[in-house]
């Protein structure tokens, strides 16, 4: 499928900022069954591009002139594989095992243990799992958490969102990841774009990948779970970045000096062909 993507992020400050520094992960990955036809990022200040340890393209951006606005525009066309539930080979020098360790955002708790136990059984060390039990886990998270914009903020942990019973795609991904890791299954966060007709969902999206047994490759492969939509990852998704959680893979992490009263405005449009 061809996805036309236009993503504009604008920060405005009532009192101007003297300095800003940002890590921007808005360049689609070139693996995982997708191909970039063209892509561009417009942004102010100086920037340099690096591939991080997870194989993500990261732009570092610094701005030393006084500014009351930062506008970052990412746009282009990406071709995605038509298959749903594509098994992806491992793709970076960070071993899959490193994704079995919980992070502060995915720290486990009684409710997460209960979810994990019901879908995945008892803990027995580092393991791979069948995609069927992981689908059951996805279904359980989908049932346990109602999608509600604004119910959580970006610093919410998996346990907090699950206790609330509502959240956004980021929370559902974290809960799924937390439950996988609670059973020793490597699992990771994916940030990207979603082609959707549903106006309640944003097109900026997050989902999860879990390390599953792969009969063809012997050791294992990543399988994508779009928990918010309770289905395996498919052609409607464009992968931007992967990491242990939102902190590693989220689209923009930044800080500024000055720049009081920040207002962020995001506009994402994804059209399919």
């Amino acid at each position, binding site marked *: 499928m061809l996805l036309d993507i236009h993503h504009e992020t604008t920060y405005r400050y009532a009192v101007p900022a003297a300095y800003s*520094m940002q*890590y921007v992960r808005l360049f689609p990955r070139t693996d995982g069954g997708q191909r970039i036809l063209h892509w561009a990022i417009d942004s102010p200040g100086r920037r340099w591009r*690096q591939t991080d*340890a997870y194989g993500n393209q990261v732009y570092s951006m610094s701005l030393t002139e006084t500014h009351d606005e930062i506008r970052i525009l990412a746009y282009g066309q990406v071709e995605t594989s038509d298959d749903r539930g594509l098994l992806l080979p491992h793709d970076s020098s960070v*071993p899959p095992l490193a994704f079995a360790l919980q992070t502060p955002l995915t720290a486990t708790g009684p409710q997460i243990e209960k979810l994990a136990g019901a879908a995945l059984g008892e803990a027995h060390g580092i393991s791979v799992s069948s995609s069927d039990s992981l689908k059951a886990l996805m279904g359980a998270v989908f049932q346990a958490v109602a999608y509600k914009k604004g119910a959580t903020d970006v610093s919410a942990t998996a346990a907090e969102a699950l206790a609330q019973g509502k959240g956004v795609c980021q929370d559902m991904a974290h809960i799924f990841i937390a439950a996988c890791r609670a059973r020793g299954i490597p699992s990771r966060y994916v940030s990207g774009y979603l082609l959707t007709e549903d106006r309640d969902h944003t097109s900026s999206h997050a989902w999860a990948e879990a390390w599953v047994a792969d009969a063809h490759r012997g050791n294992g492969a990543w399988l994508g779970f779009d928990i918010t939509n309770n289905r395996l990852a498919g052609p409607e998704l464009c992968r931007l970045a992967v990491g242990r959680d939102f902190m*590693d893979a989220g689209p923009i*992490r*930044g*800080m500024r000096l000055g720049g009081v009263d920040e207002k962020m405005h995001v506009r994402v449009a994804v059209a399919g062909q």
Partner: protein
Amino acid sequence: MKNIFDEMHAQKGGARTHYAQYQEWLGQMPAATIVQKRAEADSAFHRYGITFAVYGEGEGTERLIPFDIIPRIIPAAEWDKMERGLRQRVNALNMFLHDVYGEQRIIQAGLIPAEQVFCNAQYRPEMQGLAVRNNIYAHIAGIDIVRAAKPGQSAEEADYYVLEDNLRVPSGVSYMLENRRMMMRLFPELFGRYSVAPVEHYPDLLLDTLRQVAPAGVDDPTVVVLTPGAYNSAYFEHAFLAQQMGIELVEGKDMFVHDETLFMRTTQGPKRVDVIYRRIDDDFLDPLTFRADSALGVPGLLSVYREGRVTLANAVGTGVADDKSIYPYVPDMIRFYLSEEPIIANVPTFQCRKPDELSYTLANMKDLVVKETHGAGGYGMLVGPASTRQEIDDFKLRVQAQPDKYIAQPTLALSACPTFVESGVAPRHIDLRPFVLSGKEVRMAPGGLTRVALKAGSLVVNSSQGGGTKDTWVLGK
């Protein structure tokens, strides 16, 4: 424990050769002079402001680390061997770090289980594939060494063992330097009788090491010391070392990243920084990579690091090599990377993650020292022989709940050195922390910091747990 090696007195007859002159000198010293000299040392340390904040005793608790005027003396031949052992060990640890964050050969070879490394909280995926200058990660290593007899051995059979590697931000070297300065000031005549290897060039060695690992193409690097600030327990040391090296002491807020470069703010405008001797933990270095709530680091620092345009000493992620769960594998690292046998042995260690070693630990806890793999500074550990039955039972439950978080070691009869205490001179247990520097080559100041447990019978030498320090003399050949 009967098999305690006394550093000064041989079990049969008199002072050991290398202490003979000292003992004679001390015997002639009037008691009043000793009292006066000790008071002089205390007041001088207070005046210089060498104190140490102690965690867990309420905010702002500062304490003077007690200084003992009886030196710990190491004969030349012993140091010679120890130095070779330290060089070997630190080389292997650096090769291990380069391997973990690179090819991972030692894991493929099956010598260390992959999950011990990659599911370790100290493993930093961010370092994977990131090139560091000269492949050195632990530029400054503090290797804790004890002399002890193993259970069943006699005191005179005691040997040196590595108790712990400290590869993150090891501290204490300022005490090594200040203790020497104090001894020379109090007892100049002793340094006429003994040929004591100097240590005061350590700051020069450190600066030279830091300059050696500057980014490629930088001929005259700007080196700074990064401190978390005046509230940190080791702030005195940060300021002291910066002053001794003649370089800037900075906090994160004094620096910023722009255009692939790290700058510090100066009165003459921004100045490029090439090497950071950082005394803050990984988690706080870059709030855009690690903990977002850190105000101690520099936003964007990791992007300059990844670009190879700044050197961090020590590198990010060295904790995966000094974690107590990795410690048991260091002898294997030495054999694997260097094809040599370890010159200084490890203390025998039981890994509670292994079922039979766990049952051994649970059955023998009253005789063992049990440590949390992520603990440091003497926190989170149980010294079996010094604990009540209730304390041991409580600790057993903790170990049973999370066995992979614990290791256990036999309670070693650490060597003792005569020390001034309230009742006079009495033997107290000691250890040694040499500071090993790795740049283009491995170098160290002879000796290190000797820590002494001031409580009778106590084996815990950590300054946070009431330990003191001594001057350490390595004798000339």
